[in-house]
């Protein structure tokens, strides 16, 4: 796989949550940060440099792809991103169950799974990260 990957540097993250907001806005979730496909977790003890950002790693052998019975998850060879194809989805939640990292999210209101699609190769979250904790390279 030659495509670029998301890189997270926890030591640079300030949990400003710009990534979540950017994601939520760009994916039409009305800017609800809870609906973002990227999640920032603050350190339990609020220690600087100990925060973490969790986002889909577009795994080579992805649990979501494996679990989906409808072949609704498909990898774009150009960007390396695994896309969720709405028209193929049967909404069985198998993908959500199948991702061991929690990056396949279930949108209860829409009865629909969502996931990071690398914004077609130019992730918005990266652009809005003020500290460089998120990189796409």
């Amino acid at each position, binding site marked *: 796989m030659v495509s670029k990957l998301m890189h*997270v540097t*926890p*030591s640079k993250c300030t949990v400003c949550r710009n990534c979540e907001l950017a994601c939520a806005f760009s994916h039409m979730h009305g800017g609800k940060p809870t609906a973002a496909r990227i*999640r920032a*977790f603050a*350190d339990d003890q609020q220690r600087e440099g*100990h*925060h*973490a*950002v*969790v986002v889909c790693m577009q795994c080579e052998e992805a*649990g979501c792809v*494996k*679990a989906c*019975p*409808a*072949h*609704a998850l498909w990898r774009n060879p150009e960007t390396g991103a695994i896309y969720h*194809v709405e*028209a*193929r*989805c*049967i*909404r*069985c*939640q*198998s993908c*959500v*169950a*199948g*991702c*061991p*990292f*929690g*990056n*396949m*999210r*279930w949108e209860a209101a829409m*009865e629909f799974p969502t996931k990071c699609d690398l914004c077609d190769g130019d992730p918005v979250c990266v652009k809005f990260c003020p500290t460089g904790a998120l990189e796409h390279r």
Partner: protein
Amino acid sequence: MSEIILNGRKVKVRKGEFLLAVARREGIEIPTLCQHDAVEPAGACRLCLVEVTRPEWEGWSKLVTSCLFPAEDGLIVSTDSAPVHKTRKGILELLMARSPNAVPVRELARQYGIEQCPYPVQHDGDNCILCDICTRVCQNLVTGAISRIDRGVGKRVATPFAEPSTDCVGCLACAKSCPTAAIPYEDEGLRRTIWGKTFEVASCAGCGAPTVTAEQAAWIEQSKGVSREDQLVCDRCKAQKTAAAYQKLAW
């Protein structure tokens, strides 16, 4: 690459590509009720009829279901000619008599200018229009718990003997892919009921939120090789665990 003429416009197509897909790519709307990308096309609802003409056979034209008709070089396709419109309307009138309460049926009937159904309307008719999406989804993609029973006018969708099925894993895919919301189910918290069978939804080991049914988790593990433990934790708790792992890695 081949070329067809779609509503008067030249359009490039791959040979064998279905006309419905071509039309949708070109932004042309064709009504469908039995089409779902997850399963093979069936040609059951007949609403996606279009008119095809071959210039080399003068005067020859035919209504075909676009969901199944492969594009061929030189084909002339009209997606909303008078015969197409008339036949779709005739089909919608029949559907209105059967399932007058099904939302997409009503919506299409309105679009096609049906004010009054010419047939006796079954006001208490169920919403199932026998599009076959649920059974195709269950049979081809999941466990095959439901199927179509009987034939002809008596055809209906059911589990074997209309009893709770041992094959059903409670994934709700049938109900959620149904275009007319004709499959009743309850899904509240940790209890889920469909086709007369009540399931317990496993609660997340971390926060107690509902995940999937134990039956579904077992089926995914067995058929897809995804470990059951990973499945019984909600996405948020799994993400938190991932975050914790990152933090551990970083220090």
